[in-house]
């Protein structure tokens, strides 16, 4: 075998601050499990971690194809990690085609180490062998350090189907390279395969140990990323699991959903655990029915959640308008993906903000929140349920494909009974009380729930008066619209102004929302390290927006948003100030605050990289801009 390193007796581990590792394979070869396990083991060591899934759009894309890369990117750091980071430092690939897919997508750092399954070199099909050899030569010539490993051959000595065990062999290699505790790896395997027979755990442990031993014997490098054991219990889950745990903790009883990528895994997990606490996941016949079903349950006194993604959200819009009009509390989780239409189902985007804020015909005020971390996915659902029931409103929680599958440890939640929904009110309604007795200041009316004696009335999606009687009277119609709108203002008064990351004043303020919080703040920290006066602010509530935002913006001469949705750039000749379309949040901030908010956005479907954001932000700073013009 070419390029196989010689044996080194004692390897001294190079201490690193952080590394980005990718494991890619064809679908079904277990690279995702390998990556997730690596992250979990590192987290158990006390490292900061962030994982990003690499998902092909098809369930079974053709084997050995550049578009078929499936796997995981794991960023391991000595400190807490807030994003997926920059290009990969080290890649494990099970064939050269999926690897080329990642190389061509620009996901590898120059000179990155590549651990490549070497069996293709001797493949009976000469075309495969040739394509492999050509790829290795091309990568070596491009400066990558390619290490060919006979993974399958090594595994064959241990298990019947090496294709099924390779991922654990690779995990063993990585544990060795990164000086991870082998016992933690064994514990992690026991956890993943806890539902399988003991023999399954045993054979996987054997594979990990074999990979570890192979690396010890054959590799000439080793790393150590310092870790500190956690001092408080930490949870390691992805955003969708965190959101599902949030549903559990919020006291909601009913989740109505229809399968849609990338939201479904939240419902999968909930389906497994919800019944243990008396909850029900209802898979409806379609998205419209899922939303209507949840509205029915909420109307009957049990605030429900419906979980979906972009196309499903579009289908729910009419029913959401009904919930707004009839003032029925409802929680909607929209795990955003690329759009419009079917778009990019497995890729991340922040394209649904305006549809969420302004969606449904007519004036349909809803509360819109965005989750910015994995931890936030948990707490946002609890908060959303509370707001929904306090204000009898629809609360939409926007997550995205990035958070859905990313993992990051967070402090184990301390359960509080105050998170739970109160029991269904069945007390008699006092005589004279009206079902829409809107408070003149807050717009809030006490909701009558079926079963409450004396509260009988018919709710309707038609314009209605305080008695819920259909009203075509222009004054009454305006009254209803006014009170439903007031609720947003009343909620806004309770919101805490956002905080500024970095300095309170400076040359440029970057504003973000949703899953980009970590990456934006990391870029800001790097730039501040270079002495640049950059700060950032992240919005949790997009509707209503908290007070104080305008005042914060006023402290910076330049304000821009960084988003993952479409915005025109002036680089296109036909675009100028009169026709440029801004990113969603930029548009909202410009409209609300009359501030000249600029924007930069990207719609590549991949999580943003801090290094790229640093370049972008530098280009927007004074002096730099002039330099660009001059050059």
């Amino acid at each position, binding site marked *: 075998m070419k390029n196989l390193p010689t044996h080194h007796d004692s390897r001294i581990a190079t201490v690193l601050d952080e590394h980005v590792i990718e494991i890619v394979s064809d679908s079904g070869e277990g690279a995702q499990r390998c990556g997730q396990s690596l992250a979990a083991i590192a987290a158990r060591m006390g490292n900061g971690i962030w994982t990003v899934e690499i998902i092909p759009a098809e369930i079974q894309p053709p084997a050995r194809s550049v578009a078929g890369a499936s796997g995981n990117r794991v960023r391991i750091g000595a400190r807490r990690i807030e994003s997926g980071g920059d290009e990969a430092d080290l890649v494990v690939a099970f064939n050269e085609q999926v690897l080329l897919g990642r190389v061509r997508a620009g996901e590898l750092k120059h000179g990155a180490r590549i651990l490549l399954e070497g069996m293709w070199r001797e493949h009976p099909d000469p075309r495969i062998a040739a394509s492999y050899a050509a790829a290795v030569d091309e990568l070596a010539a491009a400066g990558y350090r390619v290490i060919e490993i006979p993974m399958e051959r090594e595994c064959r000595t241990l298990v019947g189907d090496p294709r099924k065990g390779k991922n654990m062999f690779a995990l063993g290699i990585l544990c060795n390279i990164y000086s991870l505790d082998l016992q933690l790896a064994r514990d992690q395997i026991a956890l993943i395969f806890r539902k399988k027979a003991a023999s399954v755990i045993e054979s996987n442990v054997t594979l990990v140990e074999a990979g570890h031993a192979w690396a010890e014997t054959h590799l000439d490098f080793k790393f150590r990323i310092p870790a500190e054991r956690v001092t408080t219990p930490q949870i390691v889950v992805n955003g969708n699991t965190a959101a599902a745990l949030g549903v559990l903790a919020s006291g909601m009883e009913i989740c109505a959903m229809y399968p849609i990528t990338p939201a479904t895994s939240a419902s999968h997990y909930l389906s497994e655990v919800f019944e*243990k606490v008396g909850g*029900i996941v*209802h898979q409806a016949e379609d998205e419209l029915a899922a939303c*209507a079903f949840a509205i*029915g349950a909420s109307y009957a006194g049990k605030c429900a959640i419906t979980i979906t993604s972009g196309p499903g959200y579009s289908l729910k819009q009419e029913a959401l308008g009904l919930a707004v009009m009839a003032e029925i509390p409802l929680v909607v989780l929209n795990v955003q993906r690329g759009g419009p239409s079917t778009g990019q189902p497995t890729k991340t985007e922040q394209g649904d903000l305006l549809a969420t804020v302004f969606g449904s015909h007519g004036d349909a005020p809803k509360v819109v929140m965005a989750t910015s971390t994995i931890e936030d996915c948990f707490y946002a659902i609890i908060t959303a349920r509370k707001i929904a029931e306090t204000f009898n409103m629809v609360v939409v929680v926007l997550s995205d494909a990035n958070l859905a599958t990313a993992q990051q440890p967070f402090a184990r939640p301390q359960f509080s009974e105050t998170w739970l929904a109160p029991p269904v009110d069945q007390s008699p309604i006092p005589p004279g009380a009206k079902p829409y007795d809107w408070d003149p200041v807050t717009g809030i009316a006490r909701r009558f729930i079926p079963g409450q004696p004396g509260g009988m009335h018919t709710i309707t999606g038609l314009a209605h008066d305080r008695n819920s009687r259909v009203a075509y009277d222009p004054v009454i119609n305006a009254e209803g619209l006014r009170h439903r709108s007031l609720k947003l203002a009343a909620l806004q008064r309770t919101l805490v102004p956002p905080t500024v990351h970095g300095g309170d004043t400076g040359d440029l303020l970057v504003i973000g929302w949703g899953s980009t919080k970590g990456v934006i703040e990391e870029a800001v920290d790097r730039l501040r390290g270079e002495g640049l006066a950059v700060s950032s602010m992240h919005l949790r509530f997009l509707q209503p927006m908290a007070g104080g935002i305008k005042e914060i913006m006023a402290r910076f001469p330049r304000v821009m948003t960084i988003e993952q949705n479409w915005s025109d750039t002036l680089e296109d000749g036909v675009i100028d100030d009169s026709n440029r379309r801004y990113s969603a949040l930029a548009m909202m901030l410009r409209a609300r605050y009359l501030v000249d908010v600029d924007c930069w956005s990207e719609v590549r479907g991949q999580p943003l990289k801090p290094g790229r954001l640093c370049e972008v932000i530098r280009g927007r700073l004074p002096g730099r801009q002039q330099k660009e013009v001059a050059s």
Partner: protein
Amino acid sequence: MTTSLTDCVLALYEEHHELEEYQSGMPRWCNGCGDNAILTAVQRLCRDAELRPEKTVFVSGIGCSSRFPHYMKTYGFHSIHGRALPIAEGVKLARPDLHVFVNTGDGDCCSIGAAHWIHAIRYNMNMTVILHDNQIYGLTKKQASPTSPLGTRSNTTPRGSYLEALNPLTVTLGVQNVSFVAQVVDWIPDLVFDVLSAAYRHQGFSFVRVIQRCPEFQPGLHEIAMREPNRVQVLTHPRGLQLDPSLERVYKNRLEHDPSDLSRARDIASSTDAIPVGILYWNPEVPRYEQIRAPSQLRTPDKIRAGLEAELDKYTIWPDGPTATT
């Protein structure tokens, strides 16, 4: 608030309500509209079945028929076009203690909400579903509906409708888990009441198609059937409908039909000779979704806490090392 035992006992006996206690407002349907007959029968049913108004919910979609809940002094939900069934399902799953009725029209149920109709039959939740079938769109002013007879002249089919009418009975009887299917005509009020009462008593998804007149947009459509009682075939059976002697004298076209016979029910539903009236199919054994899905656990804060902690345990990294993870 505490309630004394005496109050409870009193409450048990205070369940009877008069007709007026189920009535709300003056219906704004046209003169001669079949909806009025259904409303009268339903109010009678509520009284006779002693339904507590606060425990009764009428859910409707959009259309003339869907204004129904506004005329009941119960809880009501006048929703959006086509979605009455999934809303009613959500109500029933959340609150099995409520009596749930659905009022839906031929456009609402058989057109815009048709997907929900099929699946509602599968769920077989305990609710009484009344299909107010006037074979035309009324509220939007005369457009052909899926159940309009071929050749119906309407504002969207000025030269006559193009397609054969959809038969709601055969569709319903063709779906797995069907448990109760009946049909009546609005011009025999006693039968409307009898059939709706049987539907209400059935524990499951009771589907009643009411063929009703729309004097405004389908005038004369049922005139011959009304004039010639033999055009109506009454299905009778000891386990089904038993005709009152006064009606027996008028409706001589009768058919003994065992409502447990699904295959025969399908034949009857497909027949175009006469309008079958009565219970076509009844199977009390079909499992109900709300029973299948009923939580086995009583929901208490302690239970939720325990369930959540157990899940969190699976994903926790403990400060004192991994061995604490179970």
